[in-house]
């Protein structure tokens, strides 16, 4: 029963945790490790005393693991931009996939704290108080990082200037940009 309920939890929460992890981390592999580590932690917790809100519990655990890993980041060389293997083949783009990669790419261009605040506030829909508590910073800092982060995201995600109109076609959609 415990195992079955845990599998249900994984099925429901893993994609959401993956989204969070890949959005606040600059490395896909590190993000996936975060999720995996949280799942291990959750299984241990699950057997002892299942949390009332397991997804919220897991989300908190994931963010704290991420922050902890950030503090060790000086041991590792920074990986800028997206991993080469993150970039899907253009032919495989559908609208959702394109948006996903554009979002991840844009988020990874933000400084770490801005990225964390923006993701938790506007994608995880946490309140300012919750974000402040989770990240261990003041509410004022949350607002400051949120404003700066959103301003920068707006710039990054803005549609590229329209190219010189060609007689036959013109693209109005934002173009995926990849920073090496």
């Amino acid at each position, binding site marked *: 029963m415990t195992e079955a309920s845990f599998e249900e939890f994984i099925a429901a929460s893993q994609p959401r945790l993956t989204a969070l992890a890949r959005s606040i981390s600059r490395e896909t592999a590190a993000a996936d490790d975060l999720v995996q580590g949280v799942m291990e932690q959750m299984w241990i917790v699950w057997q002892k005393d299942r949390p009332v809100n397991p997804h919220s519990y897991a989300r908190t655990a994931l963010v704290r693991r991420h922050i902890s890993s950030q503090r060790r980041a000086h*041991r*590792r060389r920074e990986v800028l931009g997206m991993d080469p293997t993150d970039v899907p083949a253009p032919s495989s783009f559908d609208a959702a996939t394109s948006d996903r990669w554009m979002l991840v790419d844009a988020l990874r261009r933000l400084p770490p704290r801005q990225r964390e605040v923006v993701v938790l506030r506007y*994608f995880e*829909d946490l309140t300012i108080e919750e974000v402040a508590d989770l990240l261990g910073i003041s509410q004022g800092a949350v607002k400051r990082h949120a404003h700066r982060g*959103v301003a920068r995201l707006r710039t990054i995600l803005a549609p590229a200037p329209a190219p010189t109109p060609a007689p036959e076609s013109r693209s109005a959609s934002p173009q995926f940009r990849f920073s090496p």
Partner: protein
Amino acid sequence: MTIRQPSTRRDDPDTSFLAPYQATYRSNAVWGPEPAPRRFTSRPATTGRSLSPWLAIPVAAAAVVGIAVAAPLAFDRTGDSPSGAATAGASVDASTEQALLSEAYAALDPFNRVPADFDVLITSDGEALNFSFRYWMPTDEADYAPVHEAALAFAAEHGLQGAISEMIPADGWGSDAASALRQTRSTIDTLYASSPEAGYSASSQFDLVDDGPWILVWRTTPIADIDEAAESAAAAAGIKLQILDAQWTQTQLEGYLEENVGEDLGGFTITGNKMTPSGVILWVDGDLATAQSTFAETPIVLAIRPASEQGSNVPL
């Protein structure tokens, strides 16, 4: 999925432009190329026997849910590199997964002496088995090629849908050195953790081909017994250790940078930083005088340099 609305956004900027991205973010379907695993298999107890000591804790935890995990504390990697492989068509059950996992470890364990870490994850979506093999190796290509080939062969032999990841190896290094570095670093971490008043930070250096591994320790308050114990541990492992008196720990410096360094500071932009035991050096693009006056009363900022002089730095 039910999306909870935030209680207030009075203090928020206009985020309407994020709407399509928020919808994408909340779509479970677009995250990850593989279906969410429905089953976490159990890692065979015997597979832990040959794993290195620093894997003991994660393996102990992973044994419960069947994921072998070893955080790559000191090494880069390239990320997942899906390799084309066959997909098993038959339905599988837990015992099949268990058996395959045992075989995977049996096949790959002999290589554990070579790579720094590896882990194997086999999951099932009810129709096919997914096989994930990852390793982090501080050694050269000649050493890790057999491991890679063994993983590919195992996946192919068992009709597994495989994903093989590899880590960028540190130039010219053998796994023994990396192992010693990790273990020594862990020992030193533990030593200083027992006295938080030491204000400790440490960094492992591992990419100096000629000079070998070394560990740099910063601590704000010298505690002789701990320093001596750290030196003994490093000497025993053949690791060079440098202990520096510091005004700030790296954690403090990183925290300062994360909290206080913005994008546009009015006339200049910070393009890079370097942490030192005495403070942080900032490289700025724009009005240097303004930047210097801005941080004149900030003790943690050691120096301001023009971006044109920027060399090795940590991108913000």
